[in-house]
């Protein structure tokens, strides 16, 4: 089989992994090939609108496991292929030199056993770094069940490592993938986190000390393949952020590929709206200083599909509004619908020079058609009239967003 055919199979097999970030790693040029900039660079956008920044491929789509949700499961009748390390290195370098990509995102099905697979992956990244002096970005999957020493070795050559949890609760994981359990996934995550913490103080004392996974680790959760609630999903994510110091949790709306498996829901379309709401909630936790229990709790276990989670929060908490633009602190400003982290900081810097008018707010990028119901500033007085009651506001915002919400984006309830 030639390279182009292999690439076709192994790119198709890797496409369901949604991560593509290249941020968080600064690699200065070494005189060889490549650099990484901390903001990250996307190089293209695929027909589904997702960014292409890394060459995202599987090393092989052969797999010894039979997880119900995975397109590459053992019992699926699909074409299989495997790269040699040399082929993969060659493609990476040639794509990189043409400025197609920022680097490599290498994942793999498990062939023979986890140790064998992890050793092959490590060989690719070592060859790239040591033989070809490749200094671009590398994101590597850690294979659950592989020996600690192998994962620790690979961590020295890559920018980011990730282990996918895929199913947001252990009981459902065991139902869909009887050969797996949470421990096998969480264990490498703890290991990576520990190793990162070990290397940090060393680097503080001596700069040339090696970096261990400098761009941190990430994971992915499949949404809609199991009946897990948004509360479960977001609590898990919040724990991963705080306990394992993950940089990112990705949410991937389930796409019904393995149609013959009756354990899976027959979704007509992936639950894109729910996925979008989860990302919004995730952003609230990472950039807006929200705690997970402020977004979902036992009484509201699922996110409102019709309203974004921040607006929903604002309508549940009328007591904190209206917010005075001239006096409120950053934490409070970030809670106002229509104000983002950028505009909140612009407000802080602009109000040192004087009063901030609603015209200026608009110019700063504040979405006034939302924010104006929740703030007071120079010419917008406090509004206590019944027009601005939560129920009324909800109806008003719904009317506007109802058009966007077509029935097929709502997930079917099958459980």
């Amino acid at each position, binding site marked *: 089989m030639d390279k182009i055919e292999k690439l076709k199979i192994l790119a198709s097999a890797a*496409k369901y992994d949604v991560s593509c970030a290249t941020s968080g790693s600064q690699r200065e*040029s070494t005189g060889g090939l490549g650099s990484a*900039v901390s903001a990250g660079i996307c190089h293209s*956008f695929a*027909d589904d*609108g997702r960014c292409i920044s890394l060459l995202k491929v599987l090393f092989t789509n052969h797999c010894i496991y039979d997880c119900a949700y995975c397109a590459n499961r053992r019992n699926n009748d699909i074409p299989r292929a495997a790269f040699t390390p040399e082929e993969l290195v060659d493609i990476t370098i040639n794509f990189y030199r*043409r*400025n197609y990509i920022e680097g490599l995102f290498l994942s793999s099905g498990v062939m023979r056993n986890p140790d064998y697979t992890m050793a092959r992956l490590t060989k690719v990244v070592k060859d790239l770094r040591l033989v070809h002096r490749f200094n671009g970005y590398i994101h590597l999957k850690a294979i659950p069940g592989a020996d600690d020493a192998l994962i620790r070795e690979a961590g020295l050559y890559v920018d980011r490592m990730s282990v996918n949890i895929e199913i947001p609760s252990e009981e459902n994981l065991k139902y869909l993938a009887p050969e797996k359990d949470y421990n096998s996934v969480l264990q490498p995550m703890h290991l990576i986190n520990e190793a990162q913490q070990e290397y940090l103080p060393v680097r503080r004392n001596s700069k040339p000390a090696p970096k261990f996974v400098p761009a941190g680790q990430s994971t992915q959760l499949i949404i809609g393949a199991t009946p897990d609630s948004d509360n479960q999903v977001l609590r898990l994510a919040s724990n991963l952020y705080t306990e394992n110091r993950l940089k990112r949790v990705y949410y991937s709306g389930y796409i019904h590929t393995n149609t013959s498996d009756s354990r899976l829901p027959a979704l007509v379309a992936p639950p894109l709206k729910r996925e979008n709401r989860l990302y919004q909630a995730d952003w609230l936790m990472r950039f807006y200083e929200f705690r997970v229990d402020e977004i979902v709790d036992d009484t509201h276990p699922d996110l409102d599909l019709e309203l974004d989670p921040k607006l929903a929060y604002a309508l549940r908490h009328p007591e904190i509004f209206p917010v005075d633009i001239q006096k409120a602190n950053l934490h409070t400003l970030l809670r106002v619908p229509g104000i983002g982290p950028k505009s909140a900081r*612009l407000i802080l810097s602009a109000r040192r020079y004087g009063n901030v008018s609603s015209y200026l707010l608009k110019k700063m990028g504040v979405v006034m058609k939302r924010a104006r119901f929740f703030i007071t500033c120079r010419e917008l007085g406090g509004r206590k009239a019944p027009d601005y009651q939560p129920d009324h506001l909800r109806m008003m915002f719904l009317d506007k967003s109802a058009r966007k919400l077509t029935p097929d984006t709502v997930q079917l309830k099958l459980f």
Partner: protein
Amino acid sequence: MINYQYDGTFPGFLSAVFEIWDRGRFPARIVPPEVAPGLFEETIEVKTADDRAGRVWKGIAKAGGKQLCQRLMHVFLSRESGVEDLMLFILRQLFDNKKNVAGDLSVEEVLRFTQMERKVLREVHRLYMFLRFEQTADGTWFAPVSPKYDVLPMTLNHFESRFSDQSWLIYDTVRKYGYYYDAKVVEEITIDNPAFDKETGSLPLEAQSADEQQWQQMWRSYFKHIAIKERANPRLQRQFMPKRFWKHLTEKR
């Protein structure tokens, strides 16, 4: 109102600044060469003088800091009409009122200045994203670009450090000039070879390296197969990757 007409270069702009303060005459405007003078307006043609420009440049750095110098340069590169007014406003505050207002977004001019700078920097980043090299028969890597603003010089450090071991040539097909890097230093060039198509910047097949087409085909195939059909979203794709970039994108040609 006196119009100071400069030659369109950055030193020319700085020379005009010098003359305005030299003559001590406001109200004044600095206008680019393509603007026709109004019937009842006095227009002074400014001669570009490097020593004067240098003095203004140093003066700005001293009063406003290096960062302000850079920001003025960025905004200047936009070449949008009216940016001279915004820049002059900031310089007037700096020199006459001894105030660096560049951070005060509550001032309309400063806000527009900041937004203009953001647009220019975004264009720089888009070159990082969408530039595509092709290997020529002699091993040089060639990339045609057509940025909205004249930002090619601002990208050189990035490409030099990233592709430091390959010789490359980046050519701006809008402004008809480029930069050549021989794996040691970067120099500005123009291309006079009549066989080269300056409008499109496209390389004829025979000028490409033997396996260039094979790699391009592989990239196109990768591009096609990495997309998830069930999630097709052409609108989102165009939003992130506007059509004006497609003509130089291997995967979209």
